[in-house]
């Protein structure tokens, strides 16, 4: 990502010493990347803000487990993706529980365009962009989280297959086939969103 190898190694050493100034630098360096990734995964700004904080807290606590096999940014992405997937599962369970009539209703209703996408906070409502980009945002939030994960990493973040394998723990063949299905699902969702074939 933003740091070269030497700067990254030095930063990791300082992080492992729990150097607070180094951690401040680390958060400032990576906060944009992590936030947009988590926002794409969760589709909800308020959830993304909270989750982004949790990702950095986890990094601070578990930096000792970083062995340096992958780039620091890739490892950070893995933490962010895992956190997001766990949160999606939790919100999905909670939404289904609510539908069964067991939710106490004390929390914000979050169901529109997917079981975990809050209506009020959806970034697509206010974000700039073409009609196609808005349709893509909404459609992305509506597809299966496992599909969304690979599409976000590959087609939005522009990561290589190798990096996606390191982040997701999937083998190459699975990444390829899942990406194929994900893109097809996204295309169908966009066509539903636009009410027509995707314009070329």
């Amino acid at each position, binding site marked *: 990502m933003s740091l070269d190898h030497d700067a990254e190694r030095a930063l990791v050493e300082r992080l492992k010493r729990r150097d*607070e100034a180094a951690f401040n630098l680390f958060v400032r360096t990576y906060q944009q990347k992590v936030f947009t990734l988590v926002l794409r995964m969760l589709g909800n700004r308020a959830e993304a803000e909270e989750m982004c904080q949790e990702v950095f807290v986890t990094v601070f606590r578990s930096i000792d487990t970083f062995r340096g096999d992958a780039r620091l940014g890739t490892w950070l992405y893995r933490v962010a993706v895992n956190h997001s997937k766990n949160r999606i599962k939790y919100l999905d369970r909670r939404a289904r529980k609510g539908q069964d009539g067991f939710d106490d209703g004390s929390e914000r209703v979050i169901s529109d365009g997917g079981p975990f996408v809050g209506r009020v906070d959806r*970034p697509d409502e206010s974000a700039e962009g073409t009609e196609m980009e808005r349709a893509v945002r909404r459609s992305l939030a509506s597809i299966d989280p496992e599909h969304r994960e690979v599409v976000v990493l590959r*087609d939005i973040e522009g990561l290589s297959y190798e990096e996606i394998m390191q982040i997701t723990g999937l083998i190459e063949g699975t990444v390829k086939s899942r990406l194929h299905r994900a893109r097809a699902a996204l295309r169908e969702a966009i066509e539903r969103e636009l009410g027509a074939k995707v314009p070329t």
Partner: protein
Amino acid sequence: MAMTHDEIRDLFSAYHDRELPQDQHDAVRDALAASPELSREYSNFTAVLDGLSGLGAASPPPAELPPPDLLHGVQRKLHTRSGGRFYADRWSRAAGVFPLEFLAALVLIALVLAYFAMTSISVSPVPPR
């Protein structure tokens, strides 16, 4: 290498990513050139990917910027969850809210103002009685 249209469609994704062996890549390319229907479908497919790459723009819209107090929130959580061990003093947490460069500039301005204030005060010696 002869393939059906459905087989070609299944290879759109890998073809786009240039992940196919050369013979399959050539077969897909030839099939797209020969079939307007497949060619149109492939254009639709790449339009979706173009829409996605547009989301990863270098300068995200304001709605996709992280909150300005994100670092401060992280520091607060670490302070609380560590029982006060990390980010123990108010100064270290303030560093997340105000960049250090900003704080340094403030201190510098204060020093300059203090210097001018002191030099503008004329102290007249007390006359001997």
